[in-house]
């Protein structure tokens, strides 16, 4: 019997026991799923995006099922950074890396949240949620404009010494350029993709299904798009990439690793099965055993492209 595969990875300075994190906004603050999953057996968790003050979120209807996926427009409901630090974080077991996702309607708010989070030893890293409409720029997402994104990453970088991830919006023409912008401004890693901007309509009422009109598409439906973007982004930068988008199984995760991701995040699948992230960990280990892979790190960027 050979030794078990080595699943440990380093994601931009965050040491993970395995490459499987839970995606922001799909795993609450970590404690909600504790009845069903041992958090110490997954790589770590990414918190719900935190703002300076608590946010109530959007009116219903907030979610809708779509073919092999779902739409959401939750409106960034969250308890705020102070309640996260004082109530949510201490409730998590030791030994679970926690990456705090942060968000603001202006760069100053991002910076203030980053500073608060950086005071806490329990936070292993930060993830900038750049898919937020930039109020002063007329509502365009920070992550959709290279100039806005560069300023955002630069300012947050100045506010923290923690490992800094930037979660990229897929709603752009050139994802490689966005990845390079983050690397150039000192990000330690990038994570992609966030949800794809989408819409569904009820033909009986002739109204948008979601109260917010537009929502973000997630789930298996977006997986091939996510793989393509991870592939392109990973080839454009030398910082680690964290792959996100419709991952449900170990094999799904391995595809992202082969396309250049160092780690992955499991999102919508958590709704279907609160132990989904653990199943992905087990699935990666099983693949490694089957394929004779000693360390999961050997898989990163290992896609075999056709010659010429």
């Amino acid at each position, binding site marked *: 019997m050979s030794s078990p595969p080595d699943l440990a990875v380093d994601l931009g300075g965050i040491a993970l026991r395995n490459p499987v994190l839970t995606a922001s906004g799909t795993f609450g603050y970590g404690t*909600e799923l504790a009845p*069903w999953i041992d958090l110490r057996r997954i790589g770590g968790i990414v918190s719900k995006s935190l703002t300076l003050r608590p946010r109530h979120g959007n009116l219903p209807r*907030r979610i809708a099922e779509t073919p092999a996926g779902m739409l959401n427009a939750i409106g960034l409901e969250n308890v705020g950074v102070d309640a996260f630090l004082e109530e949510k974080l201490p409730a998590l077991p030791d030994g679970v890396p926690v990456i705090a996702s942060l968000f603001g309607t202006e760069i100053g708010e991002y910076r203030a949240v980053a500073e608060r989070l950086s005071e806490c030893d329990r936070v292993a890293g930060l993830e900038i949620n750049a898919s937020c409409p930039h109020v002063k720029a007329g509502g365009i997402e920070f992550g959709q404009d290279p100039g806005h994104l560069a300023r955002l990453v630069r300012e947050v970088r100045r506010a923290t010494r923690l490992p800094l991830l930037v979660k990229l919006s897929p709603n752009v023409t050139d994802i490689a350029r966005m990845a390079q912008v983050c690397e150039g401004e000192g990000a330690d890693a990038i994570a992609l993709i966030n949800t794809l901007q989408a819409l569904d309509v009820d033909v009986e009422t002739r109204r948008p299904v979601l109260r917010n009109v537009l929502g973000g598409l997630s789930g298996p439906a977006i997986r091939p798009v996510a793989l393509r973007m991870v592939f392109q982004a990973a080839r454009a930068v030398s910082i680690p990439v964290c792959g996100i988008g419709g991952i449900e199984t170990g094999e799904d995760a391995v595809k992202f690793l082969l396309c250049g991701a160092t780690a992955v995040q499991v999102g919508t699948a958590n709704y279907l099965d609160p132990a989904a992230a653990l199943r992905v960990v087990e699935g990666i280990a099983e693949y490694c055993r089957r394929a004779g892979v000693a360390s999961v790190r050997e898989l990163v960027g290992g896609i075999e492209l056709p010659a010429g």
Partner: protein
Amino acid sequence: MRAEPGEPLRARARVLENRREGPSHLRLRLAVPGFGGFSPGQFAMLSPGPLTPSRDPLLPRPMAIYRCEGEGAPDPVVEILYKVHGRGTAALAAAREGEVLGLVGPLGRGFPLPAEGEGAILVGGGTGIASLLELARRAAARGPVEVLLGARAESELMGLGDFEALDLALHVATEDGSRGRRGRVTALLPDALARAPGAAVYACGPTPMMRVAAERAAAAGRPVRASLENPMACGFGVCLGCAAPLRGGGFALVCRDGPVFDAAAVDWDRMA
């Protein structure tokens, strides 16, 4: 491992029976090892996932737990009454004996039972009826119970025979008049409130029905416990999709803070 009553499981539920009982509703009987019981009004997320390897439909469906036989026994049976009204429930209706479904539950906070000696009035409309059978059974052990059930037609009155088998006063309304009074179930409420002045009032059904029930009861100075049916993706408080607006601002999660709420706390104007 056996769960304590109410402790939520993530279980493989084997289909024992999935029988059509009306033009559009079915009775699903599931063997759920370890299921330790539930409080009336709690629900489970049933995953059509294993039925649909293509992951379409993707999401599990919240289903009221209708009743449970042999709670705490090695192989308890969980019963679900449901109506086919979309792709998820259509996939569920195709499940055959022996197939395995994903089940997470019981979830949420159910109905607070009436006090010992206190009566109860239960108002159920459409699929909301499925949330009320266990409540009716337990409330009947504490005091007199009146159950008011409504549907479009007699054939759509889910579980009618099970309610008839309980020792309680049953009143029915159908929109086509095929059974009981013609009209909506909420029309039966004022008389019931007058007959049972001290009874606790409970409601489950479509949002407009619960809203009317709440308004009629409030006009008589009576609070209502209403079980909401908002769409949800997870059932355990992380997708935040099922938020119900509260009077005075903010939201509560139907899955975690409910599904049962004091109807006066809900901002019905801002419900989807």
